[in-house]
């Protein structure tokens, strides 16, 4: 069953990394805790991302599944992993739509495998929506307040 999970790399439509793509299937969070050699895992909305923190060193790919675009738990999962220092690939999969891209990017996602391929032009525009940002998040962008007060 674990074998069937996850996206295969050719379904990844946008990727903001230069390293090799991880091409083996992901396993569940539960399985990941038992399997000491797993390098790819998939988080469902109800999973606690913090369970993975002890294993971050060995993970090269974390997929965060969005079964429905309106379920925003995956945004928190992503940030939590980045805040804990995870530097591997963080892939949003499932109901990933144009208008979620910029927020996902800010939460630390660096690859995107939407269920339905997105219009490239619309997506490019969406990634570039915010020239500036108000909040600190996982992308380390300098915020508007930071810029206002730089020496």
């Amino acid at each position, binding site marked *: 069953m674990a074998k069937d999970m996850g996206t295969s790399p050719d379904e990844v439509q946008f990727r903001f990394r230069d390293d090799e793509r991880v091409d083996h299937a992901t396993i569940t969070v539960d399985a990941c805790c038992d399997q000491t050699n797993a390098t790819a895992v998939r988080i469902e*909305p109800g999973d*606690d991302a913090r369970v993975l923190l002890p294993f971050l060193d060995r993970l090269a790919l974390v997929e965060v599944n969005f079964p429905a*675009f*309106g*379920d*925003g*738990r995956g*945004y*928190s999962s992503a*940030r939590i992993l980045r*805040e804990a220092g995870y530097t591997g690939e963080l892939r949003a999969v499932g109901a990933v*739509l*144009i*208008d*979620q891209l*910029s*927020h*996902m990017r*800010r*939460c630390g996602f660096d690859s995107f495998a939407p269920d339905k391929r997105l*219009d490239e032009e*619309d997506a490019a*525009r969406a990634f570039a*929506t*915010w*020239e*500036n*940002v*108000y*909040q*600190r*998040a996982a992308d380390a962008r300098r*915020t*508007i*307040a*930071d*810029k*206002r*007060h730089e020496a």
Partner: protein
Amino acid sequence: MYRYDQYDQAMVDARVAEFRDQARRRLEGKLTEDQFKPLRLMNGLYLQLHAYMLRVAIPYGTLDSRQMEMLADIADKYDRGYGHFTTRQNIQYNWIKLEGTADALADLATVEMHAIQTSGNCIRNISADHFAGASADEVVDPRPYAELMRQWSSFHPEFTYLPRKFKIAVIASANDRAAMRLHDIGVRIVSRNGEVGAEIYAGGGMGRTPMIAPLIRDFVPIDQMITYAEACLRVYNRYGRRDNKYKARIKILVHELGAAEYTRQVEEEFAHLLSVGVEPPREELARIAEYFAPPAFVDGPKTVDRSDPDFALWVDRNTHRHKHDAYVSAVISLKPAGGIPGDATSDQMRLVAKLAREYSFDELRVMHTQNLLLPHVRIADLHALWTALDEAGLGSPNMDTIEDIIACPGLDYCSLANARSIPLAQRISERFAQSGRTEVVGELKLKISGCINACGHHHAGHIGILGVDKKGTENYQLSLGGSEAEDVSLAKITGPGFDEDGVIAAVEKVTDVYLAARSDGERFLDTYRRIGMEPFKEALYG
């Protein structure tokens, strides 16, 4: 007042462009209505019974004359010449067309306004004490803190798909004029040994399961307030219920976990986020606060000539004590007897804008009671102000009386309604105004919702009326004893409901009971609390 710099302006402009693009993709069929819905909602566009409704944000209820004039222009250009001020200090237009929305938003952006996050499952427009910056009883002006939160919550990448909508109110006084504890998060700015910080309440709300927010933190240092709010939201985003939309508000999470356990989780997340460093730089609050520096008040007369009894009554009812003794805050009632609570025509908006320029340092407020307010009026100017208001039908001396009714749109506009709210409010205010009973009864807050969603705050009314559906006919449930103020409480249902005529008669009966039982200086609410529900029940059903 706060002014956008190039960054704030660029954010709002980017949002207009984004919405224009979304509307285009919807029209081209690239977005389904299902996919478009949360996007239009995040831009304040609702589908109602007859048309789209556009809700425009008025952050912490503060605006200037130029902005009010734009609201009037929008009413004329895109709607039917009027707008509706709401309990969350926003304005709604009821007759908007999808095609015109992006243009309306672009017009708003020219005066630093927008409809961002006025609906949808995100952090909504931040509301605040309408007397902020003016009231004699405040610790500090709460608006700089609300503005800091506005920026933090705008386009927050993690909190745009919360389990449900999220409402925050900020006050800075022991007196609560913003229904703070009926919000998802309530913030009270306090001073402790000279240090400013925030008291945090979480898990309040109305709707079908009304709850009063418990205090979860008695003091967050002010330079950690955003971090604390972020922790509150993260715990909610991760663990708030998503299986049932009626149980998805934070109040249910706080209730199910218990305030202590929710607080424990928040504190843990807070400690973690402090180490991550998400707080804006300290200088940002100082930068914002400069915009809210008090205007240059000048000394002047402290009393008015009371020889005109109508004027004297208006002064007694509709003005509020100011920090500076030569000034007051003056309430502009949008509750003429028999009128629609909260509605203003474009001409009235323009007049109010002009009066703000002449008499109130160009500042205006929207109150959560669906009235407008001039925060800083010289006592010497009060008579001239009142004369101008009275001529325009805006001089009703009825703040906090039974005519000052909060009512939701109800069955006249809303697709979720069971019953009409507006005509009921009209009939009640007319009845009390005509019989001269309004003044006899004094302070009595009556609030009407057309269904269990409680947009009209009926749970928090001294008298609350809720429209229910009884075998296909409109029926009204009466409740007593609620309050949204510092003495917050939830109203209790009296018993079986009434038809429209019946509920109006019932309101009169409960005021009879009050008048017969009240002792010196007691408000309706005080008498109810002292004598309890029984005498009222007896009169209604006995």
